């Protein structure tokens, strides 16, 4: 592989995988700590009708209208889930499951009806993303990194992913302590006068933004995997809030990079002449990371710990 090929084909896809998986890994810890990991699953699917609507209205795969449509759909989904819980008095998991599958199905119908499917959105793309299509055709080599003309031709998914990642990291830093309390004891947060409902809504919108930015690159299945697996693996290894949240983001980003890097060489190592779907490899690594964390935890628990003092 030449340097030029690396810059044109691999670098943008690699960066997209790192940003997408890192953003999802960052927010996954909050969902996990709130025992609400299903919500990540729900939001990453419920955004589909909004994405299709944004696509249908503008007639192009432009980042911003699709992002706004997705956020609107996510907001609506959160509202409807709350409504179903109250009115139908269903438990949270059932209400969430019923609403997001309906939203996703509506999105698929919209996709057929608006003709989006025939252009360049289809079910495969929704489920697995198009990581391999994130390419930087203007790149010539290292010099392109400093060339404004070439940089302007970077794939637009990268700009969206980078902007979302920066905004999310900033918001998490800004809301660091209230989010900690919101995850632990939301009623107490409300009782002492923190805007618990507003924080909850902000967190849901952040998850929706991460999901939709990552969705196009890596697909909805990997979004779900990256919202759950890095956070779950880190949770088995640490009892520190800071290590949990930052570790989730770092592990997500690392899995994205490693998965993308392995997708080509892995089959070759076994003498096979094909490349694996990168999203598939990243998702598989996510599951392996959780399994590895379980083994590590077992090994650590086998060594003696100070006993809990009663009283």
């Amino acid at each position, binding site marked *: 592989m030449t340097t030029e090929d690396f810059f044109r084909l691999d670098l943008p896809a690699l960066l997209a995988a790192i940003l997408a998986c890192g953003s999802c890994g960052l927010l996954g810890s909050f969902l996990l700590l709130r025992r609400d990991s299903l919500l990540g699953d729900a939001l990453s699917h419920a955004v589909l009708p909004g994405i299709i609507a944004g696509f249908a209205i503008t007639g192009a795969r432009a980042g911003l209208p699709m992002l706004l449509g997705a956020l609107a759909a996510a907001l609506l989904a959160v509202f409807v889930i709350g409504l179903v819980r109250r009115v139908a008095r269903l438990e949270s998991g059932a209400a969430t499951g019923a609403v997001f599958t309906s939203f996703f199905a509506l999105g698929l119908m919209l996709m057929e009806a608006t003709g989006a499917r025939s252009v360049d959105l289809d079910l495969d793309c929704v489920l697995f993303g198009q990581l391999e299509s994130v390419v930087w055709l203007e790149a010539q080599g290292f010099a392109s990194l400093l060339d404004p003309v070439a940089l302007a031709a970077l794939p637009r998914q990268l700009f969206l992913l980078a902007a979302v990642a920066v905004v999310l990291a900033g918001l998490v830093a800004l809301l660091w302590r209230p989010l900690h309390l919101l995850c632990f004891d939301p009623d107490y947060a409300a009782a*002492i006068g923190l805007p618990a409902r507003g924080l909850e809504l902000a967190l849901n919108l952040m998850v929706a933004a991460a999901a939709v930015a990552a969705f196009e690159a890596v697909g909805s299945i990997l979004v779900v995997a990256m919202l759950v697996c890095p956070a779950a693996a880190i949770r088995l290894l640490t009892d520190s809030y800071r290590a949990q949240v930052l570790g989730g983001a770092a592990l997500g980003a690392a899995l994205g990079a490693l998965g993308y890097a392995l997708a080509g060489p892995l089959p070759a190592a076994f003498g096979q002449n094909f490349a694996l779907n990168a999203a598939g490899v990243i998702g598989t690594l996510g599951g392996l990371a959780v399994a590895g964390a379980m083994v590590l935890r077992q090994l650590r628990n086998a060594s003696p710990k100070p006993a809990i003092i009663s*009283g």
Partner: protein
Amino acid sequence: MSQSTTTPAPLAITHLTVAYGDKTVLWDITWQAVPGLTAIVGPNGAGKSTLLRAALGLIPSIAGEARFFGRSLDEVRNRVGYLPQRASVDWDFPATALDVVCMSRYPRMRWWGRVPKAEREAARGALDQVGLADLADRQIGRLSGGQQQRVFLARALAQDADLYLMDEPFAAVDAATEQAIIAVLRRVVATGRSVIAVHHDLSTVPSYFDQVLLLNGRAVAAGAVKSAFTPDAIARAYGGRLNVLEQAVAEGGLQ
């Protein structure tokens, strides 16, 4: 309402009605707390926790209102402390005892960066009051049930409030912890503050509390323990549900 000309009551509830779906849990509660140590007592499902949670605005009420020190909760939020039920949270959570106590002071600090030293010291002071100073840096999941209950008590104390609403502060703790907690509550009241606690153990009401509210969906009786906590009132609150043992305690322990 006789107090309205002097100091307003720490908590005054008027015509409070609360329902979950179509099941009404609290009917038209009108009750005024008196400064001091007050128990809310009643059978399971009587709406004791619901009363505290509705007063704090954590669940919507159909009618009525709660006023604290004569004002709405939003105006005096920093004068009202809360201790939720221990079982209401997941204790297998990445936080130390000190982290949890610091949470009570979040409204007083910036949302980002390190916890200011003064706030951390205040939180350590609260842990010291409940005898957990040595365990400040321990993971909350590795504390015993009684220690977890005392962490919640310390968190409430660190709010530095004038009225504390406590949901079962004695739930599932051993006798020694119960004595330690009541000692703390007495110290709090001795400094002119008030505590309203949901309580389950009828036998300790007379020795622990000055005031009582007997609840069973409605306010059955309220007032000083000596006058309001009568076997007759207890029987009315518990209805047919007062078991033989509780009956014996109520009649034998009081007269």
